[in-house]
Each structure stands twice: as C-alpha cells, then as structure tokens.
C-alpha cells in the first residue's frame, strides 16, 4: 500500500477514506482490507466531490468477495455520502501475501 501524500491537497479526505475502510474486515481472517493489502489506490477529487477506489480480492472466486465489495460500498456511502463513489475491482496485479502490511501480519498473530 502506498502511503498517503501528506503534501497533497486531497490528503485530509483521502486519509479519512483510508481510515474509514479500516472498519471493513475480511470475514474469515478478521483483518481490515487496508492491512490485507486489498486496496490498491484511493483517488479523491474534492472539487468534483468524487472518490475513486481500485481494489482487489485474494482470488476472483473469493467466497466473501461480494460481501467485501458491498461492505466497501456501504462504508463509503455511510461516511462520504456527499461524494460520488466509484469502486473498481481489478485483478492486475494479482493479490499476494506480500501485500499484507506489518500491522496485518501482527493481527494474524506474528511477532
């Protein structure tokens, strides 16, 4: 996951979006999708009032895929209802375990 650019003018809202997405959990592992590395990019345009998010799933047939994607949409609708929201599901690059953050690994019980 790329770190938020704190110098960017969209940073405040973008950070809020990323924070909000931390309540969306992978139902099997109980880890939020940010630390799972499922979110590839978050683009916020404050002038146009739009949020565009690229995300993936651990596999195209993830049994919880629909739940996770609808949870992201529900989350954005709940916290950013004044913005137009677009969630794009992408498969390139494919998700791998390397994308799990250090915090995510700790949540899985790693030291």
């Amino acid at each position, binding site marked *: 996951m790329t770190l938020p650019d704190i110098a960017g003018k969209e940073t405040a809202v973008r950070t809020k979006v990323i924070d909000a997405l931390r309540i969306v959990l992978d139902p099997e592992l109980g880890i939020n999708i940010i630390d799972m590395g499922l979110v590839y990019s978050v683009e916020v345009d404050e002038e146009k009032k739009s949020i565009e998010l690229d995300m993936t799933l651990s596999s*195209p*047939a993830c049994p919880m895929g629909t739940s996770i994607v609808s949870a992201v949409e529900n989350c954005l609708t709940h916290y950013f209802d004044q913005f137009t929201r677009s969630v794009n599901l992408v498969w390139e690059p494919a998700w791998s375990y390397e994308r799990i953050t250090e915090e995510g690994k700790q949540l*899985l019980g790693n030291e």
Partner: protein
Amino acid sequence: MISVGKQHPLLYRLVVSHYLLSAICFTALAVMLLFSSDKLSGHYFHPQLLAITHMAALGWGTLMIFGACYQLLPVILETELYSYKIGWISLVMFISGLILLVYSFWNFEPGIHMQCGGLLLLTGIGLFGMNVFMTSRKIAAEIHQEFIITACIWLVATALLGTLLVFNFRYAFFQKDHLLFLKLHAHMGFAGWFLLLIVGVSSKLIPMFLVSTKLKPGFLTWSYYLINAGLLSFVTDTYLFGLNIRSCFFGAIVVAGIASWLIFVFHCFHSRLRKVIDLPIKHTFVSFLLLGTALFVIPFIISNQLKADPWAIQYTTLYGTLIFMGWISSLILGQTFKTLPFIVWIKHYQHLAGKGSIPMPTDLVNSKILKLQFSIFLVFIGTFYAGLFYQSSLLIHIGLICFLIVALLYLANVVIILFHKPQIIEL
C-alpha cells in the same frame, strides 16, 4: 465494475439442508452404536454393523461432503453450480435410499426394500456426480479438480458395486466370495471417494485458512497418481487373486500418496502467516493423526488375515472405526465450523457489512459448545480405543456415550448457526 463470485440465492437452502440432515444422521449413528456396542467385538459382517457403517459412510460422511461440495465447488472451481434442481433430486433420492438401506441392513431383510434403497442411493450419487462433472467440465483442469472428479468416479463405482452386492444377497450371481467384494467396495469408498475428495478440497482450503505463503503443488500431483495407482492395483489384484502379500505393497503406494499430501499440508502449516490455530483446525489435525493410526493398522490386518488369525477381524474393526469415527468424524466436526457459518453469515449480514458493527462468521458458532465438543471427542478417542484394545466393554460403552454427547453438541451448534437471529447493527 467486474463481477465477483456471488452466492446464488438457491445455494443456501440446498447446502444447509445437507448439513442439517447429516448432523441428524450423525446423532442417529451415535445412538445406533450405543445400542450395538456388544457387536463391535464380533465379526464386522453383522447386520447391525453393516447398517451402522452405511449410516456413517453415507448419512454422515457422504451427505456432509455433498453439502460442502455444493458450497465449495463454485469457490474452488471458480464457477456456478451446474444445476440446483439436480442437487435437490439427488438429495431426495439419497435420503430415501439411505433410510431403506439402513433399515433393511439393521433387520437384515435383503429383499425389495434393500434393493430399492440401493438403487435410489445409486441414482442419487449418480446425479451428484453428473452435477459435479457438468460444473467442472468448462474449467481448465487443475489438480484440485482432478481430485474431485476422480473421487466422484470412484464414488459412483463404489455405489454400483454396493448395489450389485445388495442384489447378490438374493440372487448370488457373483462367482467369488461376497466378503471379497465387500473389501473392494469398502476400499474404493475409503481411498477412492473419501481420501481423494478430502485431499482435493483440503489442498485448496488449508492454505486459505492458514494464510500459507509457500505452496508445493508438486506433492499434490504425486499424491494424486500414487493414491490412484495403489488403489487401482489393489482392486485389480485383490479381485483376481484375493488378499495376498502384494496387498501390502499396493497399500504402501497409497500410504506414499497420503504422505505426499501430508508433506504439502506440512509446508502450508510451516509457512503460515496466521499463527493462531483455532479449534476447527485443531480438530482437523487430530483427524490426520487418526488417519495415520488407521494406516498403521493395515499391515496387522493383512498379516493376520494371511495367517488366518481371528485377530484380523478385531484389527479390521479398529481400522474401520478409526476411519469413520476417527478420521472422517474429526475432520467434519472441525471443518463444519469453518464453512457453515459463512453461508449463514452471507445470508444475514452481507448487505450490512461496512455499515457498522456486525458479528463475524465465527461469532455465529457457540464457542463454549465447540470447546466442549472437542474435549469430549478427545475423551471418546481415549476411552473407546482403550476399550477396543483391552476388550473392555465398559470402556467401549463410556466411549460411545461420549460419542453420543459429541453428536448432540455438534447438532446443537449446527442448529444454533442455522437459526441465528441477525443482530441489530450499531451505526
């Protein structure tokens, strides 16, 4: 937006019906065992033991695997199930056939009821196999798929031979000993159906549950060819020449296949990111130990059989109970709580996810009951097998009471999950 694998609305009822019926069969199995505990020290070719074995293999093991397959096939093969209607017809035929067959075995009435039961079961199993084949045929072949399809072929062959054995009771058309075909029937079911299916499904699910980073799929390929080669050789050789010293060699080939699979599982476990091992996974590892113990017993069965030592019968009972009440039961007792809560959770909470605080799928399971179930299952293993080893009817009886308690706790937890009332979310 690209579409993702979505749970088909018809899937829920089909899957949970299999889980619930299977849990009821498990309780019935435990009750039947308790009432037949004295038969366990006799010959395994006894009407009540035949009824119990078929209740275990079909009502408990196979029915549960059918339900799990309907739930997991779309995930593993990344496609939709071919037909839900065929799934329902298969279930109705399977249950009707099972009731008739178990009733007929228990009372040993090898007439029209047993024959109809066999034919209904064969049709139900055939329809399941067709559904799996049609679901997977448009997908590029992967090793998991090969395991599942081959397991279904072995299942249909097992059911066909079983049905022929039922008719052989009345018309005696087999030229060789009925017990010889019974051995082939049993091992086609054990190694061909249960083992291949479990290896195929687990090799996809275990890395997913453990979040394993290093997979060694080459071991699965070895496992597939070794198990099938060993089993085919065993079936052909035993049919032609009966049980003989070569049977040990063919058994060793199957064991090598199992070892390859366990090496794959070991690598998954070793490279896991998820360090916390939950109770369902502990149940799964206990099941592997019990499978290993069952395999350890095989040489004793063959050597005693060749010496015409009556201990061969005791070892066969030990082997059979380790397979059904040990390996398969422990696996299902754990894996049910890794799969069933998800399909129920999706139904109740999918549309609420991300809006606030909602339970996770694991919260649908009553963890206290699950802990109790696991502990009592371990007590059952200790007392029951000590009872078989020391020929103690008291220990066997205590073990079977524990087994019944495990079955009731399991049924209670399945019912709790199925009748879960959605909790109000905090926005």
